[in-house]
């Protein structure tokens, strides 16, 4: 039984009891507990089930490396699966649930998989589900999807909020153990801007548990004094609960601060993602203990030796009365001492080494503990928890010598430095044969933009395991002045690498030796992968799932690749490691999204009239980041009816369109005319002051890119209107040419899109309405079609353009945006007698289609040139050059066989579906029906009361009157006649009044 000890526990506050539940069962812990320590304290050894075989799983570790003890935490809007109990701080009322079992943790049907392990080897997915072919889609995949994945997907909207924060530092030190603290102290004294981040809630790391003496005192007191000293330094920032998750180019470091995980619902953001720019990064990230591979090493109660003493010392939790220790090194003997100090029993230390005569083993012997040298564990006894171990000779094949009853097994296979951050940006590793570990190669670090090292690894993260050397390394690495803090700890004899226990174990034992307890990868699986030809460690990882999922193999990777190397008869460094990728441990999706949710998920651009639209039934349509009214719904009205009503109003009286989103770019300078002649296909330099001209812009490949009305404001100033979506793009396009290609041309541009609110007043009564506002002569004589005037209209500073996109008499009026809403209100009021109403983008689209005007994005799709749209009239023949001219002369572009714009009229008056293709005779080389055209815009025209469309058709303009076929759904064919694309008022009499 695991239980809470009567005394001790340096992190818990026994005066503050906290209640929580596990699978509905009430449990108690203390402030300072993790979920794992609290569960162990309440004798909850089994926490979940494994992924593949549904084997019972208990706590293995005490930190970020934990593979097993994952729970679903919280409820409703605060539920999150796969929370590591070892790194989750206990809080009052925590609701936790085990994962990956059905119907219950104790009795799980999926555990049947465990009995059939011989049929579920590595890669069984690839081998098993091949035949019959149809079964994958209909049988196997649905079943696998059902059983795949750890934990449950949250079903409710996340109740918490999250945020980013940006920070800058000369030095970011990652890891608040004694190495990180010593480095921060030394760097802080030099006046550098230093950040020190620690992923747990506590400073000090391992040294405080391991009984290290620093500067003549307990490590604990040195840590407290050092933290206090650092807190006093203005140039040093300390953060606990902050995990450096990834290091990227140029010292860009992401750090994940868990602000309110331990105080849920207190109103603070739950997580904050620090986006830091570090001059240099010091990784003092420590090391992770490795398990040993012996049969039954996955049974709840088998734990890492360091974790066992963490639980005893930090949280006063005993893993059981009797703990057997199995090791290949001296460090694990510290666990024996910690257990003995707590009054618990250590029946034996099983040491794989032929001899264990170091200071620590001798100290353990002196306290009467049996030390079995040259021994190993043949097998762990027990099912849902450990009941004992059978010993064997390490050098042998696993013949059982003796059974030792026990409640827990503390194992240690040596240490692996945490090299993740070091490696993220390309830092390389060396294999150290003596310590059996990959450690950072200081000669091959990740480098910054100056080619110098961007990261320095210190302390255990640098492969240095003794406290005195750790402190010296950290102090020296940051250029510390004077001597490093001195430390005293027990001397240690070398370890002996042990990858299989016993070394000659046969298949039966290897089938029960877990490498990756989360994903159920065993020694036998990696060996099988090697036999099947998986030589690359990256391929083996994917084939066996070793080191996948939430823990990314923090305890299993090195053992796995050692087995792979052994199976392939090559040295470990030849096999190498898999790639270390951010994040170090999983971070929440919320933190990645930051503040971007709800109203501020993304910017919503609003015109000055946006709120009026909102309160007048606007049915919105997203256009870039703007939202424009598609139409304005009246009570009880459908969208289609509203659109028709708006069109009828414009055609018969007058309507208003909020055109403020149109791009407006000022172009000015002595060479502005020449510049615009290059940008537009037609001539802009010859446009007289006071006039407007419709223009087309192509990219250098000749394809139509944007269109709009250009206005000549003064002798050297033009105002270019662009499409709504094109405003920023075209401004950038202009600046690109001016800054990179024609940098010596005297032209300036300014994007004044948002300076003006712009309203189109369209319809036979448009002039009457504006005359009511008064102040400007807008008669046909004073302001002819395609001209503009500036003046004061109803008291507003206005520029009035006589342009029409609807085919009606139409004015577009620009006023300062700050006055836009007042101007709109004035128009609505003055227009009352004409029944004035706003119209939306759909009415605008239909009216322009009735007139045969093209629309960028409908008639164009990046493959269409102006000539395809019969826009030759807008292409200057006189100009030597313009962007796209040469491209349009290429043979394919100039081919008479290109599809060209025509109007399409269905024979029965119906509307052709958008995007429908017209078929031609015969089939192509792929057996597909030949095509001869497609629909680009299609609408029901309320004006003409029939379906109208525009489309691109091969030789279209030469085939007027011909009927072509558009096959649509269910074998139906829509027949349409090729007609002139101008359906309404071909002579333009209506707009020219």
């Amino acid at each position, binding site marked *: 039984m695991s239980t809470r000890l009567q005394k001790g526990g340096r992190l818990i506050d026994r005066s503050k009891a906290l209640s929580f539940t596990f699978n509905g069962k009430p449990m108690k812990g203390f402030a300072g507990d993790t979920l794992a320590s609290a569960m162990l304290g309440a004798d909850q050894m089994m926490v979940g089930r494994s992924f593949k075989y549904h084997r019972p799983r208990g706590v293995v570790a005490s930190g970020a490396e934990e593979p097993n003890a994952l729970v679903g935490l919280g409820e409703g809007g605060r539920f999150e699966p796969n929370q590591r109990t070892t790194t989750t701080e206990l809080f009052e009322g925590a609701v936790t649930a085990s994962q990956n079992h059905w119907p219950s943790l104790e009795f799980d049907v999926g555990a049947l998989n465990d009995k059939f392990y011989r049929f579920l080897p590595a890669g069984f997915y690839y081998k098993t589900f091949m035949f019959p072919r149809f079964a994958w889609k209909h049988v196997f995949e649905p079943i696998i999807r059902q059983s795949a994945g750890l934990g449950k997907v949250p079903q409710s909207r996340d109740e918490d*909020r999250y*945020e*980013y*924060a*940006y*920070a*800058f530092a000369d030095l970011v030190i990652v890891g608040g153990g004694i190495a990180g603290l010593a480095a921060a102290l030394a760097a802080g004294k030099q006046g550098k*801007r230093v950040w020190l981040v620690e992923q747990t809630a506590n400073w000090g790391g391992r040294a405080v548990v391991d009984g290290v003496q620093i500067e003549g005192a307990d490590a604990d007191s040195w840590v407290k004094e050092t933290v206090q000293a650092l807190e006093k330094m203005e140039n040093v*920032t300390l953060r606990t609960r902050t995990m450096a998750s990834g290091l990227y180019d140029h010292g860009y470091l992401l750090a994940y601060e868990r602000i309110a995980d331990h105080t849920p619902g*207190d*109103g*603070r*953001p739950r997580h*904050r993602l620090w*986006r830091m*720019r570090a001059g240099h990064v010091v990784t003092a990230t420590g090391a992770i203990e490795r398990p040993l591979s012996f049969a039954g090493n996955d049974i709840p109660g088998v734990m890492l030796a360091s974790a066992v003493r963490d639980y005893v010392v930090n949280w006063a939790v005993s893993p059981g009365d009797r703990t057997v220790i199995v090791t290949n090194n001296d460090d694990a003997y510290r666990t024996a001492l910690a257990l003995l100090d707590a009054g618990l029993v250590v029946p034996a230390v099983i040491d794989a080494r032929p001899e264990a005569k170091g200071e620590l083993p001798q100290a353990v012997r002196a306290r009467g503990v049996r030390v079995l040298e040259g021994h190993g564990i043949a097998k762990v006894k027990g099912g849902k928890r450990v009941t004992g171990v059978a010993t064997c000779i390490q050098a042998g094949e696993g013949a059982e010598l003796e059974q030792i009853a026990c409640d827990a097994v503390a194992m240690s296979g040596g240490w692996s430095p945490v090299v993740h951050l070091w490696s993220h940006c390309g830092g390389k590793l060396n294999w150290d044969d003596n310590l059996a570990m990959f450690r950072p190669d200081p000669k091959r670090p990740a480098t910054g933009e100056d080619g110098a090292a961007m990261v320095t690894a210190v302390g255990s993260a640098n492969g240095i395991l003794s406290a005195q050397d750790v402190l010296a390394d950290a102090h020296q690495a940051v250029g510390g002045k004077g001597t490093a803090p001195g430390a005293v700890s027990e001397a240690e004899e070398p370890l002996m690498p042990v990858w299989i226990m016993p070394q000659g174990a046969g298949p039966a034992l290897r089938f029960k030796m877990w490498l990756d307890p989360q994903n159920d990868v065993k020694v036998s699986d990696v060996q099988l992968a090697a036999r099947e030809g998986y030589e690359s460690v990256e391929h083996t990882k994917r084939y066996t799932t070793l080191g996948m999922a939430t823990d990314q193999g923090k305890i299993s990777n090195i053992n796995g690749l050692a087995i792979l190397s052994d199976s392939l008869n090559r040295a470990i460094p030849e096999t190498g490691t898999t790639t270390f990728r951010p994040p170090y441990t999983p971070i929440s999706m919320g933190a990645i999204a*930051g*503040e*971007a949710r709800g*109203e*501020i998920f*993304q*910017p*919503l*651009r*609003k*015109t*000055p009239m946006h709120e009026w639209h909102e309160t007048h039934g606007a049915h919105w349509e997203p256009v870039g*980041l*703007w939202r424009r009214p598609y139409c304005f719904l009246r009570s009880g009205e459908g969208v289609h009816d509203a659109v028709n009503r708006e069109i009828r109003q414009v055609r018969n009286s007058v309507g208003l369109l909020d055109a403020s989103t149109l791009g407006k770019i*000022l172009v*000015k*300078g*002595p060479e502005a005319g020449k510049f615009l002649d290059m940008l537009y296909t037609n001539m802009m330099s010859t446009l007289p002051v006071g006039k407007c001209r419709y223009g087309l812009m192509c990219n250098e490949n000749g394809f139509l890119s944007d269109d709009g009305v250009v206005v000549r404001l003064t002798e050297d*100033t033009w105002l270019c209107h662009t499409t709504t979506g094109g405003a920023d793009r075209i401004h950038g396009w202009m600046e690109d040419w001016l800054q990179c290609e024609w940098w010596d041309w*005297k032209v*300036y*541009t*300014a994007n*004044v*899109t*948002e*300076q*003006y609110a712009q309203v189109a007043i369209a319809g036979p009564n448009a002039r009457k309405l504006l005359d009511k506002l008064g102040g400007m002569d807008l008669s046909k004589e004073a302001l002819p079609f395609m001209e503009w005037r500036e003046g004061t209209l109803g*008291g*507003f500073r206005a520029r009035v353009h006589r342009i029409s996109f609807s085919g009606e008499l139409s004015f577009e009026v620009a006023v*300062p*945006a*700050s*006055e836009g*809403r*007042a*101007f709109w209100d004035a128009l609505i009021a003055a227009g009352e007698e004409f029944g004035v109403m706003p119209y939306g983008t759909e009415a605008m689209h239909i009216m322009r289609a009735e007139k045969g005007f093209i629309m960028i994005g409908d008639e164009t799709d990046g493959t269409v040139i102006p000539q395809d749209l019969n826009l030759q009239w807008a292409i200057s023949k006189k100009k030597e050059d313009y962007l796209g001219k040469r491209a349009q002369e290429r043979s394919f572009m100039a081919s008479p066989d290109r599809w060209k714009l025509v109007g399409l009229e269905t024979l029965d008056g119906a509307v052709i579906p958008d995007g429908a293709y017209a078929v031609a005779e015969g089939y192509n080389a792929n057996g597909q029906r030949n095509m001869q055209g497609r629909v680009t815009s299609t609408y029901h025209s309320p004006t003409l009361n029939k379906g109208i469309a525009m489309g691109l058709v091969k030789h279209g303009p030469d085939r007027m009157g011909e009927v072509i076929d558009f096959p649509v759904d269910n074998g139906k064919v829509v027949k349409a006649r090729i007609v002139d694309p101008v359906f309404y008022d071909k002579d333009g009499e209506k707009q020219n009044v």
Partner: protein
Amino acid sequence: MSKAVSALGGVSHKGFVEVSEAGLQGMITVRGDLASAKMKKAVKAATGTAVPEARRIVIAGDKAAAWMSPDELLIMVPYTEALATVAALEEALAGEHHIVADVSDARAMFRIKGAKASQALLKLCPVDFETLAEGEIRRTRAAQVAAALWKSAEDEFSLVSFRSAAGYVFGALEVSARTGSEPFPA
């Protein structure tokens, strides 16, 4: 002029700092040769200040000149003076290649006030506020949109965005300034 309203009508929110829309502000884009004698004279006449150095803003009472790029300045004057200033700048720069554009109505301006003003901003803007010098203007972004900011008084920053994004910027500022979410609470 009475018809003119700013994008958000002067809305404000008090969290651990106060964020508010500052109302109408005259702003004029000027592009040209920033080193020319005419430019220096024109800026002096418009704002009473010198042409700012790179990444600087020079403030004189209710007017200011800010550096935007190697050939662009932002001139700030009271809203009601913008038109006259545009005309004066045009006249002063006549004969020299330049552009002057009134952008008073294209922008929104915000003030972030309080001892921890930078703590709200550092959640949205990738700016090193500890090294942001007195009189420095920073063109940056506020979350997902373009912005420019500077320290406009003791414990106060001013931030300019495009008018259409004003609601978004204010929303982001409001969330960032919520009480209890100070990144450096002590």
